């Protein structure tokens, strides 16, 4: 890995020194296109994933005392150090972890946590304070700031889904939802639709709402064309599990490897609200997650894109430390966040395992503000000052 990185960097550096003429025609292209276009892939786990049964604190007796019937047996835990280990359903991620491609950040949350799904999801997606209501998402605001620098393409951020999440909506710019590039393309090529687009193509669009609707329509039309034409040039050869998440990540791989000029991808997996009979339900979902992510990371490594890709996984909250009476867990607060990539500055477990004795009403206290995670991604990966997006400045972390 290191050797490959060295070769790549030095090749570029020498190229720049020795043959400046070669670079001349490329001046119009942003430098990142030469050095590799950086991608951020966000995977949202909806419903409040139980972080304690995901990254299991098997070294802490309190965990077993509080979870008499749903704790993961120490023998089954895939141990990462002498305190924490992976849920056995995440076995596929062990290899990824061992390669130094995975980072686990414990106890991520925010002050005055909200235990309602929709409110907490709103807070994570808009990056707001817990008593603040924002109508734009944090990625949307990144698009807004990008737009001021002249990038007005909706496909800068793609959600592989049928509908667009609030996270992806900015004030003037929005990402685009694409479940299937062919389907989107077909839809925009219906004859009547085409007529409307072409008749308005060259007209000066007004600033009013009708102009806005036509603008959105025309952008969708051209984005659909670009995404379909670009992505069809690449066929994913790696094997992916036949699950919806597996297919979505396979689509992301296709997009990345075909050279689509997209910086952010967003996918979600739901089914984590495990109030009842948690073990089987969460186990199924974790297996879907771990298998799909492992396939994705290995695929990107094969194609040489892992160094240019960062994957971040979050859920709107974790769950209570103590299990409930129906072999499940109820809504909690702080949770773990996972980061994957080929170029992590810090791999492995980022910070201490959650403290199970100092609780806030039976819930974990957060140690890391989720906006410090976002700030890190914004500052160090997307090259934008996080204050522009998060309203106030966050210090960030040093995992990349």
């Amino acid at each position, binding site marked *: 890995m290191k050797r490959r990185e060295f070769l790549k960097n030095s090749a570029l550096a020498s190229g720049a020194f020795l043959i400046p003429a070669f670079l001349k025609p490329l001046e119009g292209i942003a430098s990142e296109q030469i050095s590799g276009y950086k991608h951020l892939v966000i995977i949202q786990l*909806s*419903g*409040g994933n139980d972080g304690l049964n995901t990254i299991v604190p098997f070294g802490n007796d309190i965990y077993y005392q509080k979870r008499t019937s749903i704790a993961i047996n120490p023998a089954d835990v895939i141990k990462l150090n002498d305190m924490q280990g992976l849920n056995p359903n995440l076995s596929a991620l062990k290899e990824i972890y061992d390669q130094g491609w995975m980072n686990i950040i414990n106890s991520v949350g925010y002050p005055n946590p909200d235990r*309602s*799904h*929709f*409110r907490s*999801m*709103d807070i994570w997606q808009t990056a707001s304070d817990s*008593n603040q*209501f924002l*109508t734009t998402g944090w990625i949307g605001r990144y698009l807004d700031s990008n737009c001021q620098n002249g990038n007005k393409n*909706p496909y800068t951020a793609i959600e592989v*889904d*049928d*509908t*667009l*999440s*609030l996270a*992806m*909506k900015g004030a003037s710019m*929005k*990402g*685009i*939802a694409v*479940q299937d590039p062919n*389907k*989107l393309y077909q*839809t*925009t090529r219906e004859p*009547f*639709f085409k*007529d*409307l687009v072409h*008749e*308005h193509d060259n007209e000066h669009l007004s600033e*009013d*709402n*009708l102009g*806005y*609707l*036509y603008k*959105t*329509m025309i*952008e*969708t039309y051209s*984005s659909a064309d670009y995404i379909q034409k670009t992505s069809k040039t690449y066929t994913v050869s790696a094997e992916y599990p036949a699950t919806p998440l597996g297919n979505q990540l396979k689509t992301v791989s296709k997009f990345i490897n075909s050279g689509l000029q997209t910086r952010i991808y967003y996918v*979600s997996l*739901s*089914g*984590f*609200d*495990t*109030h*009842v*009979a948690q073990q089987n*339900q969460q186990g199924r979902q974790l297996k879907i997650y771990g298998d799909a992510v492992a396939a994705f990371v290995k695929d990107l490594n094969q194609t040489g894109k892992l160094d240019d890709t960062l994957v971040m996984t979050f859920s709107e909250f974790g769950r209570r430390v103590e299990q409930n*009476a*129906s*072999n499940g867990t109820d809504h909690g607060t702080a949770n773990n966040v996972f980061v994957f990539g080929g170029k992590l500055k810090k791999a492995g477990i980022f910070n201490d395992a959650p403290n199970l004795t100092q609780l806030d009403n039976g819930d974990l206290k957060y140690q890391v503000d989720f906006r410090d995670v976002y700030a890190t991604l914004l500052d160090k990966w997307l090259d934008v000052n996080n204050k522009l997006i998060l309203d106030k400045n966050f210090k960030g972390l040093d995992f990349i």
Partner: protein
Amino acid sequence: MDNLKLIKHLYARAGFGLCFPDKKSAEHLSIRKEIKELFKASETNEPLNVVQENIDYMKLLTGDMLAKKQAIQQQRQQEKDLNLAWMNRMSTTDAQLREKMTLFWHNHFACRTNNAFYAQQLNNIQRTYALGNFRDLLLAVSKSPAMLQFLNNQQNHKGHPNENFARELMELFTIGRGNYTEQDIKESARAFTGWGFDKNGEFKVRPFQHDDGEKTFMGKTGNLNGEDIINRLLEQKQTAAFISNKLYKYLVNDIPDPARVNEIAEVFYNANYEIKPLLEYVFTVDWFYDDKNMGNMIKSPVSFLVGLNRQFYITYQRPEVLLEFQRALGQVLFYPPNVAGWPGGRNWIDSSSLMYRFKIPSMVLDGGLIDFAGKTDPEDEAYLASMRNRQSAINTKVQAQPDWDKFLQNVPKSLSKTDIAQFMLEPNLSATIENAAGQSADIKTLVIELVSTPEYQLC
């Protein structure tokens, strides 16, 4: 300006759009008489009563696994029934203005509850007072179990005040940000201590939990209770201005004109917060019919769907499809994104929601497959997690039945295709639409195309 255009505008904003059968009568009435008719049709107030049982959620907490699963499913069924009952009401009622205003208050007093019985109760409060007095409405909402629960007033006790309700009351329901202090919130939270409800859903003031000490709120001192706080807030003209601004954005234009908003606020305040005089003023004042205020507002997803239903008399063999549409378009009734409600306007539109708006009409009117799935609401996760085999609605038939005969019968024979196009769309026709209208094979093809245009998204 031609009378039909005015009346179309009135119905687009005060209702869910003018339909062909109303066109004839519309042309013979003056706009003033038409406004009278509109209010008259909304005099009836019929509550929704589809949710009959108040499920005991204590059972859910203490019951065994099977009982819990059943309760979750029953709860979901009730939520679905309630949503569809309201969609059906809006799609068929003559009391358009009452329902359109109920929808406004539904968003103004945005609330979520997993108890459909309480959600229905709150919805009926909003319907009852939709055209009544704002003070009555605000009081009834503040005493409703749905809102007391949603904004944690059940946990607001003497000595341990919970400020959630007090804060939203000021920030979102009455006076707006910047017009109160943190001290006002603290003091008013104390005034609302003890407001709660019993297990039958009856409002109760619990004297032992109520803080009856002295409070100072917006310059007034005394042993103030919740009603005193509400009265004090309504004494402030700013409250009338705040509500008027929001109504202006709902009925007139996305971009508020401060002078016009002031005019309305003046009427509202002087009418002692009666809603009807405010609405009458808006619908009769000349600037409501200014060019810049016509055909330029983006329909909410619910208005869009209801408008289609009303124009084409659509019946759904599988009414759940209306929920799928709401999800795909980004507005599920009773599921506002947060206590601030749906932001509306251009926020409704992104690439995918716009594509669905273009697609849905032909799916419904021309028999089609649903080939997309809206996102699950975060609150549905518990239900999803309890279902081992999740069924997806993708590639199921819409199974909707428009009444084409009735529709076509009501289109006057004398109308040209361009006339039809101008009737169906609120903005002025562009050359493209006029051309397309002229070239379309028949009226049926024409109207399906018309309702699949950007212009149709506006009202």
